[in-house]
């Protein structure tokens, strides 16, 4: 029974990681941009939601809704003004600029909000649980997982059912030829980052309600998000979800043996997957 519970909890945890990773996957998939500031952007989102909650007295879910357009614009501008300049064959410029950005965001938040531990409260929902047979599952982790699935479904629909998604894929294949089709790659990339920031906002909501956060907490989970994206394979959203779940389950299984191995097992699972599938589980055919 404990093993079942361990796996279920791991899957739910994987949902959280997939949520952290989905925005990264989008940005990585469309423009090969390795965004080291992703974790900090999630924290930024959490602070934004917190500010909205305390300023307008809104329910956190509504506050996240209010934050969405703000974060979209922020992402759009960031990509258009700064990150577009770093794209190219060389992987260093994006690594460096986003790392710089990560430091800037962290320290700006420290200046603005101090190092205090914060929390977005969702009241009774925090402790609520539903029982699935003999296993008690928290409502918030379940919501997190379901949101992750919803985000993945939505991103897939966007990618495979809309003209915009087509343009994303085409531009990702070949920005120059996409230009001949009337795509302005710079704006398109900005839109992609804007959408990624919408996902970031959703991730921020769950980060902020699950546990405490402070301005420096972002990078700690970034590595799991990257692992999820890479395990899944570049450009596969379902793969990203699978990657998140693999890491989540590896962590809880490792912890069940001994909590010392919890985080290590997640990393080891990642290394093992890559040892056998260096391009991830569901790589795109052409890369």
């Amino acid at each position, binding site marked *: 029974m404990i093993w079942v519970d361990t796996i279920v909890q791991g899957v739910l945890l994987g949902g959280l990681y997939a949520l952290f990773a989905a925005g990264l996957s989008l940005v990585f998939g469309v423009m090969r941009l390795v965004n080291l500031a992703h974790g900090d952007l999630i924290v930024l989102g959490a602070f934004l939601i917190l500010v909205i909650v305390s300023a307008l007295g809104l329910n956190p879910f509504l506050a996240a809704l209010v934050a969405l357009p703000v974060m979209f614009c922020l992402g759009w501008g960031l990509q258009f003004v700064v990150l577009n300049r770093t794209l190219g064959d060389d992987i260093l410029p994006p690594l460096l600029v986003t790392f710089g950005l990560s430091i800037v965001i962290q320290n700006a938040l420290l200046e603005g909000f101090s190092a205090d531990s914060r929390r977005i409260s969702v009241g009774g929902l925090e402790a609520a649980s539903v029982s699935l047979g003999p296993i008690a599952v928290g409502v918030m982790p379940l919501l997190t997982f379901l949101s992750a699935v919803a985000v993945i479904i939505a991103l897939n629909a966007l990618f495979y059912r809309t003209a915009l998604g*087509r*343009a994303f*894929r*085409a531009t990702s*294949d070949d920005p120059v030829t996409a*230009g*001949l089709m009337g795509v*302005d790659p710079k704006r398109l990339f900005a839109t992609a980052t804007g959408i990624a920031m919408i996902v970031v906002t959703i991730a921020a909501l769950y980060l902020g309600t699950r546990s405490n956060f402070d301005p420096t907490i972002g990078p700690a989970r970034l590595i799991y998000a990257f692992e999820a994206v890479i395990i899944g394979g570049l450009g596969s959203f379902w793969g990203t979800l699978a990657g998140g779940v693999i890491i989540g389950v590896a962590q809880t299984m490792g912890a069940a043996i001994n909590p010392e191995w919890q985080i290590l097992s997640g990393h080891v699972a990642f290394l093992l997957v890559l040892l056998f599938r260096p391009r991830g589980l569901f790589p795109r*055919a*052409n890369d």
Partner: protein
Amino acid sequence: MTALLETKGLTARYGDFQALFGVDLRLDAGETVAIIGANGAGKTTLMRSIAGVLANGPGEVLFDGQPIGALPAAQVMARGIAMVPEGRKLFPSLSVEENLLMGAYGRKVEGPWRLDTVYDLFPVLKERRNNPGTALSGGQQQMVAIGRALMSNPRVLLCDEISLGLAPVVIRDIYAAFPQIRAAGASIVIVEQDIGQALKVADRVSCMMEGRVTLTGRPAELSREDIHAAYFGVHA
């Protein structure tokens, strides 16, 4: 009468390397112009400069009398200049149909070319509509590339080496579509190494060598020797 599309003294460079030296080209409405020239003469460079993919140096590109030389590719395309790029350049992640739909992404105007009329033009594509574009034969890929460009109902169609790497039968099939494309109202610039093919479809021919136009004329007026000289830089 102003030309539909005109370049005046167009230059272009790749870094330190100058690829075009003051190219003048003119395309009137309804006309088909062929550009011929050896490998590396600068034909593709000229197409790319017009389409806005390549930032061009001094010199002008006029479309309907308006300067478009400084516009990015997306805006050139939105005004009605579509290109079939050298090497077809299909999007490997997209199916045939999605590739075609991409063609209308930046310019959605009513016109003769829609998904169904493109399928009528190249019926074989309809059968393969859900295949990845890159799983087709070279000739079929070329059809997708042409169809994709047509989807925006362009006023000018730039075709770069559409016969490249294709068997003669396939080339014949593809060129068989040209009368229909012209009839539907597009003016065409084709780049072609196959001189015979070029002379057959074109109203006028320009020959390029080392970044310059060395000869222009109507096919009937041009002698073998002239062409040969312009093409290879020497008299045969």
